[in-house]
């Protein structure tokens, strides 16, 4: 039987889908999934135990937020962090990785829209001396109106047997995509909305989360 135990904001998750609370320490055993919907888990510490896996799907509309996430990886563990957001004011996201042993994988995918917001993303990917670890970072930000963004990727490697990958883009909405949708008879405004909504949802796997996001985006 699956169990979730909590004490002093520490969650032990085992095969459960849960919604994450603020200032949490989460310990993952087995295969787990965590969904964040418009909540702000400031100062999250997440430990993935040996031979465990976790998928985190995190969507937020941000007014003003500072989020620090520490990812602590056990042996043969795997973590996928899919995060998308719309930032209207100020968002500072710091992610720190700590590989405690060998053969672990972290994949970080971030899609963000700065709608008049200022976003700063810093990822300290510390792979250390352990072997067989992998880190993949993919960050794509779209600046709308007067949005601004900075991405600071630090990858520190002290061993030859690792894979470390970083990809980042900051840009405007894709004009070819806009022209394509307009060539089907769609108004500029609707085409823009379709593209931005698609950009926000297309990194998520959870159908429930996608439906929730679509509801909130259509309402907006």
């Amino acid at each position, binding site marked *: 039987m699956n169990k979730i135990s909590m004490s002093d904001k520490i969650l032990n998750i085992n095969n459960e889908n849960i919604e994450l609370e603020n200032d949490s320490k989460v310990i993952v055993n087995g295969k787990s999934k965590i969904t964040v919907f418009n909540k702000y888990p400031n100062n999250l510490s997440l430990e993935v135990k040996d031979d465990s896996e976790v998928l985190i799907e995190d969507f937020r509309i941000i007014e003003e937020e500072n989020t620090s996430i520490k990812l602590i990886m056990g042996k043969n563990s795997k973590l996928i962090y899919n995060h998308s957001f719309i930032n209207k004011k100020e968002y500072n996201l710091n992610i720190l990785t700590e590989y405690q042993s060998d053969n672990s994988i972290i994949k970080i995918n971030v899609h963000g829209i700065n709608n008049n917001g200022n976003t700063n993303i810093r990822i300290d990917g510390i792979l250390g001396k352990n072997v067989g670890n992998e880190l993949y970072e993919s960050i794509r930000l779209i600046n709308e109106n007067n949005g601004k963004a900075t991405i600071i990727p630090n990858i520190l490697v002290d061993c030859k047997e690792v894979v470390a990958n970083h990809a980042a883009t900051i840009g405007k909405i894709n004009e*070819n*995509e806009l*022209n*394509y*949708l*307009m*060539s*089907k*008879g*769609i*108004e*500029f405004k*609707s*085409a823009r909305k*379709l*593209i931005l*909504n*698609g*950009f*926000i*949802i*297309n990194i998520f796997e959870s159908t429930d989360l996608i439906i929730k996001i679509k509801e909130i985006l259509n309402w907006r």
Partner: protein
Amino acid sequence: MLKVENLSVEINGKEILKDFNLNININEIHAIMGPNGIGKSTICKVIMGDPNYKVTKGSIIFNAFDLLKLDITERARLGIFLVNQSPIEIPGVTNAEMLRIALSERTGKNISIFEFNQKMEEICKRLAIPISFIHRGINEGMSGGERKKNELLHLWMLEPKLIILDELDSGLDIDSLKIVCQNILEYQKNHDCSILIISHHTELLKSLNTEYIHILSQGKIIKTGDLSLAAKIEKEGFKGFSVTNNVSENQKNE
């Protein structure tokens, strides 16, 4: 239906089309041939309204509407439909979402979901594509051939009056090309519609029953004929037609 007169077009200050003329009447099928980089795709993009191309002279009239005064959306709503050489993908935006919005904005009415889905499913069968295409991201993760069929899904739903096919056969295997050509002809038979084809391949032009073949050189049409002209080009190349272009310069632009 479409009348292009003395059209001159440039991109990044370089002239691609110069005094270009073309007339397409209702239900006619035309093709433009020419070496790579001579400006064939430019014609497609300018008719559709790509803002990256600057029209410096001339006019494009479609069913009495001056296209140069209209944006891409307005041109599409008049019934112009472009199938690009490599249709782009838009992750996260499904075919169904896009088509529902396109149809409801065009008609100003809410679309009946039942009728919409029923029609989409019928078209998927006709195109021999899985029904799952309906809710897939636009061209997302699709092969070249699947993308072309996906564009035809849009075509059947949006019911255009002028279809522009830019290198339709690129990315299509023989079986898929057959299905795609049959579909286009079937569509044309059931709708009053004209077709403009850009292609190097006579077989494709034959499959689509092309009536008029035009050769493009130095930014304008220098010769017009029937399918025998395409066959001659396939056999002898463009050398016999005094086709010249600043290929290297134009290729940079295309």
